[in-house]
């Protein structure tokens, strides 16, 4: 419970995990594409509510879509501590992995 308070960003360890991670990262990048403000590509280090033209409400709505896509629960308490695309990606992988 309250996993958000000790959320660790887990580095992918093997090739399978890397493929998985790439797939989730690409999915999230695709969802964020409409909110790009300039020519800069969306990368893992992109800070979602700072570098993109997306407000926190739209982020929460996007998270609901991601929950349904991966059949996981991403509590608001966790969302509020996610800043970058990498962090969101790793959160999806961590929760989907049952952690």
């Amino acid at each position, binding site marked *: 419970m309250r996993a958000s308070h000790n959320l660790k960003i887990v580095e992918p360890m093997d090739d399978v995990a890397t493929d998985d991670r790439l797939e989730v990262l690409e999915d999230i990048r695709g969802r964020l594409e409409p909110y790009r403000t300039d020519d800069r590509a969306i990368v893992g280090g992109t800070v979602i509510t700072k570098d993109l033209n997306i407000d926190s*409400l739209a982020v929460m709505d996007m998270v609901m879509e991601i929950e349904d896509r991966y059949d996981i*629960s991403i509590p608001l308490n966790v969302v509020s501590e996610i800043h970058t695309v990498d962090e969101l990606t790793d959160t999806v992988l961590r929760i989907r992995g049952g952690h």
Partner: protein
Amino acid sequence: MGLFDRHAGTIARSRAMLVDGFHPLSVRMDRVLSPTEALIGGRHTILLGTNNYFGLTFDQSCIDAAVEATRLEGTGTTGSRIANGSYGDHLDLETEMAEFFGMKHCMVFTTGYQANLGFISSLVGEGDFLVLDADSHASIYDACKHTQATIIRFKHNDPASLEARLRRLDKEPGNKLVVVEGIYSMMGDTAPLKAFVEITKRHGGYILVDEAHSLGALGEGGRGLVEAAGVLDQVDFVVGTFSKTLGAIGGFAVSNHDDFDILRVMTRAYMFTASLPPSIVASVRAALKVVRARPDLRVRLWENVATLYDGLAALGFRLGPEHGPVVAVHMPNEQTTIGCWRALLEEGVYVNLAVPPATPSGGSLLRCSLSAAHDRAQIDKVVAAFGRVGERFGLLDRQKVAAID
């Protein structure tokens, strides 16, 4: 960086709202004349954004009760009920509200906002899950910040979305509290409550319904959507407000759960604030009697809803999804919304300017709310004013306008 620098963006946005030295968020009502009319800038203005659904703010029995209570018991209680004690009238009001909903217990709060903030955040704690509709009122979202429970959102008014979330939590041991509203305050749409109750119960959860905008307006007895949907005996908690249909201020929560009363010493928004003054308690009790005795007010309210909603739809405005005491008019952007809002005020019509983040999905709205106290001539004037303003701002569906002509 100064204290106010963090608000720089909002300050700039607020300045952009200023038109001819006039700010839409600081309207001065020189005098409120009735539930449906005020003097604003010397102009008689129809009030179409009050939430005064039965027009009871000027009901003679409510006014008399408030005046009498003030004479007998003074202007205020000057403290909380835990410290200063409850006046007999507080307890009588709680008994009457519980009876009205056919529940055993009631707690009365000083505002509706505090009822949601305090009550919801005390009901759930660490290890529990608060599962809420995405379009929940700010008071519900603020309750989330006051609890250690895990917060999960589901798609607005979407039973499948709720079901998916509860299913994912099936193996979690914590309590699940689902929070929905009878009528949503911005779009005026009602929840598919029967489905929500069924799904919640099937997954072993509790359900709380906020009837802030539906008390009086829905149900044969005015008990809100819980009554209209036939689930009054199945919901765990109903919360609501005295500041809309009941014409005053304050909030309440009712329930059949036996240990309900312990929340009086667990809810900080109840314990650490002054209780409702005698005048308010008295006028609310009188207003509840009116709601019980005058179902014709509900009929009148819905007649006005139909006249306004159908009138605006015929003009070609894009509206909220269904008839409701709140009628939301969709606007293309914030600047147009402000322009239309101002133009309506110049036409002698006051509506609510609703812009993000108060609105769902980042849209801007002109939010109208109806009252049983509006007469047909007022609604006709409002529709005509909307027609002129919509025409001026190019918002109307031309074909629909042509068809009416």
